[in-house]
């Protein structure tokens, strides 16, 4: 029946289909739908920038307006991927610039972004509106200056946790007076100073500004002036909260805060005075749906607890473990609508007053809507995980990091297989799982059996034999990303079902038992995969012998063939 509809009608219907996956499915129905879909597709998501060439992407989707690209493997976040591995955005921007694509939005994660790329970007697309960079590196404030100066209709500049070199230029001053379109500005990750005058003037002429996240160099008095000029702000990241409680600036700020009734999201507090009191914030807490104090190093647990008591509407909470189990109990009592919780360690190897399984159990009892968890803790028990699984069957993301990577159940000294098994059995919608603690092959049996929707799995220091990995590869039909470090999985696990890897985005294995020979064999059988081995040995004439164990292997499916920008230590087999 659809064959009789003119294309315009089908296009119109397709407009309502937004998700990437749904559109991918549409394009597979028939040639005509493929054609219509590709001409109307505006937003494209590329999970691995090496899976396709920019030219090919542009050919297929000439109407592209928004592009999301991810570069380095996830474990790059934890320094496991050597420097210069890749993920350069410049070729993409260059190719887009040469084409007739009217790019408006670019979102990058874990990519290397040079100042040249930013400059080219800023000059090539007249209607460019939105730049979001997450965990990227390679650029300086000079690149930001180019974006500010040249993107006349910029709406969003969102820098999250990037390594940016500060060149002490006045990049903020580069926004021309005619730029009044800003909706979102986040420069919290920058280390250097910004021109406060330019910042205040920019805020004053941006009536649509809804989200503003300042870096630590913006002092309290400037914050107060900015908030006065932008009472419509919904999302605020406070830079420095350092103040003298008696000062006029602080009193002014308290009064200004009372006027900010639109604020629903708060973050930052990157600099705080010793024994900081957050009482000035209490009045807006009842409106907050999102609170991120994970970088607020100076705030004591007791103060966090006092603050949280006011946050009755909270849906997302990112906090440090100094809140303690007791504090999490307060969260459980107060934040009945909580959906996402992240508890970060305030010290990497343990703050003895930090959180344990008790805090997590309390949360599970008080917050039944919880679906996303990232929890760094000292210890865990099977009983706790079983309780959590029962109380919160709605988990989509469950990431548990026991700081002592091999620690068993703190009460019974058993492996944590049963606990995680309960999680996957109860949470049928689970899409992402990170394991830690002492684990045998049994946990992988459970995962393979029950985790039907699982798409991403992170494993470290777990398992006993190849069977573990095989349970996962065989059982998890929707698996897309598998990353493994320091596990006894070897060639048999790697090679038993090579076809599986074409159904996945990528596989990372480091410090496991796979050998060069097995990787070579895999690469030979699967030409649509790039199998990369990192040889970081200083002796460059060290040749790859088949029997050698591979330190780091990263493989991914690709239509682009072997990449040309790999550094010397990366050997694509």
């Amino acid at each position: 029946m659809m064959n009789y509809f003119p294309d315009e009608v089908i296009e119109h219907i397709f407009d309502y289909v937004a998700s990437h996956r749904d559109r991918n499915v549409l394009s597979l129905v028939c040639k005509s739908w493929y054609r219509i879909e590709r001409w109307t597709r505006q937003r494209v998501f590329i999970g691995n920038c090496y899976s396709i060439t920019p030219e090919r992407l542009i050919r297929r989707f000439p109407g592209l307006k928004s592009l999301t690209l991810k570069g380095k493997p996830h474990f790059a976040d934890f320094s496991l991927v050597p420097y210069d591995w890749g993920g350069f955005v410049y070729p993409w921007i260059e190719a887009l610039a040469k084409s007739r694509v009217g790019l408006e939005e670019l979102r990058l994660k874990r990519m290397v972004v040079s100042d040249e790329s930013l400059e080219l970007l800023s000059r090539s697309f007249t209607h460019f509106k939105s730049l979001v960079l997450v965990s990227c590196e390679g650029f300086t404030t000079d690149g930001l200056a180019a974006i500010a100066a040249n993107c006349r209709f910029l709406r969003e500049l969102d820098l999250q946790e990037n390594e940016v070199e500060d060149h002490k230029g006045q990049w903020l001053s580069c926004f021309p007076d005619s730029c009044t379109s800003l909706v979102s500005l986040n420069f919290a990750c920058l280390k250097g100073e910004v021109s406060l005058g330019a910042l205040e003037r920019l805020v004053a002429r941006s009536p649509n500004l809804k989200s503003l996240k300042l870096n630590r160099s913006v002092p309290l008095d400037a914050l107060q002036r900015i908030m006065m000029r932008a009472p419509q702000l919904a999302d605020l990241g406070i830079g420095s909260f350092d103040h003298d409680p008696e000062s006029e600036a602080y009193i002014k700020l308290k009064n200004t805060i009372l006027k900010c009734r639109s604020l629903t999201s708060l973050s930052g507090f990157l600099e705080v005075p010793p024994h900081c009191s957050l009482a000035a914030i209490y009045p807006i807490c009842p409106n907050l749906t999102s609170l991120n104090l994970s970088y607020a190093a100076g705030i004591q647990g007791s103060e966090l607890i006092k603050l949280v008591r006011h946050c009755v509407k909270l849906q997302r909470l990112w906090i440090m473990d100094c809140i303690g189990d007791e504090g999490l109990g307060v969260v459980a009592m107060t934040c009945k609508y909580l959906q996402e919780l992240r508890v970060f360690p305030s010290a990497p190897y343990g703050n003895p007053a930090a959180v344990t399984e008790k805090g997590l159990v309390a949360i599970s009892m008080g917050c039944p809507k919880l679906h996303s968890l990232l929890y760094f803790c000292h210890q865990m028990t099977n009983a706790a995980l079983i309780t959590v699984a029962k109380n919160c069957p709605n988990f989509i993301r469950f990431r548990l990091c026991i700081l002592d990577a091999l620690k068993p159940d703190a009460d019974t000294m058993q492996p944590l297989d049963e606990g995680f098994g309960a999680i996957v059995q109860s949470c049928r919608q689970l899409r992402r799982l990170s394991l830690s603690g002492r684990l045998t092959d049994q946990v992988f049996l459970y995962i393979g059996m029950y985790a039907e929707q699982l798409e991403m799995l992170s494993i470290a220091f777990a398992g006993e034999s190849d069977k573990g990995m095989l349970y996962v590869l065989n059982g998890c039909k929707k698996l897309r990303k598998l990353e493994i470090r320091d596990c006894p999985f070897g060639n048999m696990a790697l090679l038993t079902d090579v076809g599986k890897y074409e159904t996945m985005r990528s596989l990372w294995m480091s410090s496991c038992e796979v050998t060069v020979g097995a990787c070579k064999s895999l690469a030979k059988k699967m030409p649509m995969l790039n199998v990369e081995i990192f040889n970081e040995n200083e002796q460059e004439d060290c040749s790859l012998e088949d029997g050698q164990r591979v330190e780091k292997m990263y493989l991914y499916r690709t239509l682009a063939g072997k990449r040309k920008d790999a550094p010397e230590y990366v050997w694509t087999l």
Partner: protein
Amino acid sequence: MSRALEHDYIGLAENPSMDGSSDKLCSSSSEDGKTLKETELRLGLPGSESPERKSGAGVCLFGKELHNKLNVLKAGTKRGFSDAIDTSPTHGSQGQGPSLFSPRGANVAKTLVALDTQTEVGVAPQSAKPVQENNNQVAATNGHANAPAAKAQVVGWPPIRSFRKNTMASNLTKNNDEAEGKPGFGCLYVKVSMDGAPYLRKVDLKTYKNYVELSSALEKMFSCFTIGQCNSPGLPGKDGLSESSLRDLLHGSEYVLTYEDKDGDWMLVGDVPWEMFTDSCRRLRIMKGSEAIGLAPRAMEKSKSQN
């Protein structure tokens, strides 16, 4: 110079034992550390001395039996394929015996950087760029180390984004008086450039306790770039990169170590107390002596007198 080698966390150590046994530099046990039993992991019993039970002592990955026997790593070397071959007796033997983790023992040992008070300490840097976590209080003696507040460290563990880790680390150095008694993130990475070198390195200032350690680590790190000069006539130690010739090179006429401080000024390394230096140092640069004239009149005079 074994002590200095053991401190070389960042790599490029000229380590003759790279292909050989890993016992030479840092095994704390007199036995052959490669047997399966040695690397066997056992749980510490509740109430045992396992350091995870000690308050504030940080985290230990293995049972206490492992401490004295762990065949730790060749200090200062990279994990190369030769490492893998060396310990192959423990590979492939999966799930043997009662030990929970035997095949992994050797492997995890390699990634283990610093252990409890009774262990020998060594490092296996895993990546070309020195982006690893290091215990900033490493002790490096031969088997009777008493690392104060030692922590078990594994590269890339716990899985915290580097940005977050670095931010928290610099927070702690800023609020030093607040941070007393708190175990810190303990890393403070700064870039190190050397005039004429094709790429930069990064070092974690927290892994050194004084200028001597820093300078010795930098010497090793950049030694490969000074090969040419080393072999030029007129310099001692013509067998390539001997320690002494390097030291002469760096302390002598050719190079001066400078740093950029918080205010953006380039200063000579060594003038202020070590803690003050780590607080204010943002990056390091190994400058050619000729360029350092305005910066380091002392160094120039010294080099003239040596020539």
